[in-house]
């Protein structure tokens, strides 16, 4: 009963964590814009950017997963407690974008990490990121109700 109640209200407090998988910083700038600029106030949805992966609920991954950061990204991803939702921000994590043919790039990222939401764009518009976060919240709600996590 109480658990059901918590599952119902938990998606109203998503904490976001930015995971830079070798991004060119374009997407990171847009993510910072979403967080900091009054015009795209993401705190309305209860979101908060947190510095530690241990506090995160929604992971915003940007970048094509370069070979250098691959192991670190996977390690940080494992540090995030379940239930979590992954949001791939921009073209790079899915396809590699303009870096697609490079020998240092390991995209698509879903060979390593399950991706739940994709926000295409290079970089995506702040509004589009907010829309993606809203979609991620729906997935998170469903996951909480079913008791599943991205590991299963």
């Amino acid at each position: 009963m109480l658990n059901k109640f918590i599952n119902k209200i938990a998606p109203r407090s998503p904490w976001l964590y930015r995971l830079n998988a070798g991004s060119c910083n374009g997407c990171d700038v847009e993510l910072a814009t979403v967080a900091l600029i009054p015009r795209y106030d993401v705190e309305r949805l209860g979101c908060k950017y947190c510095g530690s992966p241990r506090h995160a609920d929604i992971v915003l991954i940007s970048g094509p997963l370069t070979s250098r950061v691959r192991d670190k990204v996977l390690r940080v991803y494992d540090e995030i407690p379940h239930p979590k939702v992954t949001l791939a921000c921009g073209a790079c994590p899915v396809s590699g974008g303009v870096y697609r043919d490079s020998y240092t790039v390991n995209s698509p990222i879903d060979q390593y990490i399950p991706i739940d939401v994709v926000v295409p764009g290079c970089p995506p518009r702040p509004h589009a990121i907010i829309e993606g976060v809203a979609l991620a919240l729906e997935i998170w709600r469903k996951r909480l109700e079913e008791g599943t996590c991205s590991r299963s």
Partner: protein
Amino acid sequence: MTSFFEATFAMLIFPGGLFALAAGLMLKGVDRKAVARLQRRVGPPLYQPALDVLKLTVKETLIPHTANELAFKLAPVLGLSGVLLTAAVMPIGGVWNGVTGMKDLLVLLYLLPLPAMALMIAGSASSSPYGALGFSREMVVMFAYEMPLIASFLAVAVRVGGTGGSMFALDSIINYQMAHGPMIFDPIMLPAFIAMLLFIPGTMGAGLFDIPEAEPEVIEGPLLEYSGPLLAMFQLMSAVKLVVVVELVVALFMPNGLGGNVLVNLVWHLFKCLALMLVAVTVFRASTGRLRLEQGFTFFVKYTSPLALASLGLAYMLR
């Protein structure tokens, strides 16, 4: 001396326990909303901190395998129970006079650093370099703000006067202010009040003094490795700590109620807490950046402590 029943009630329901938790979460919510408004944002709903805490209870708890598990798990318990105990002995002017006939000002002096101690234990137990950094920063900041805190306490106690034990009793301080008007209108005590106003953001880690838990620098320092219910306890601890320090300043400087009605006095007390928090925490959080560690330390040593000491000296001379 209070009876066992009264003490339990004070611990669990009012003014500690449930009341302190509810007030703390409400103050935190108002704080976040007000910061958002000051920055031209809409901000989260007022009950957002409560949602955060509830959400954290369904998250997985991860414990680093290099951490000292016992200390890691006990630190939030220590912190939360410490602040709840502090909230239980905190008097509310015109409503509840606290534990009577004790030297509770000295007790408070020992209880107030408990949340900081809990954070230190948490930081050092988590076996993370950022946790260790947060631990050392927390300790340095604590050393910095303890000085003006003690000086302000002494200034108030000396101003109230009294003999022996009653000098450090909170109820005698409140009774003095009921009789002579609040300390805040006392020109001698004004520097001490300003010092306490600066002590609140210092101990809450707001704005300028967000040194131990600086998110971009030491990624939330001691709290770095915490997740799930343990982090929720730290959130509650921080909320109750906010209530405690604000109530402390209210009790020391402006405990006067609005006549005899208990409910009116309670609302008036909450209003005072809210106003004090808006001035001392929200404005700092909305407008200032973070000082470096040694700048924060020097700030307290150079500006805040002399203010409190000036009050103490004046109060001592005009005794």
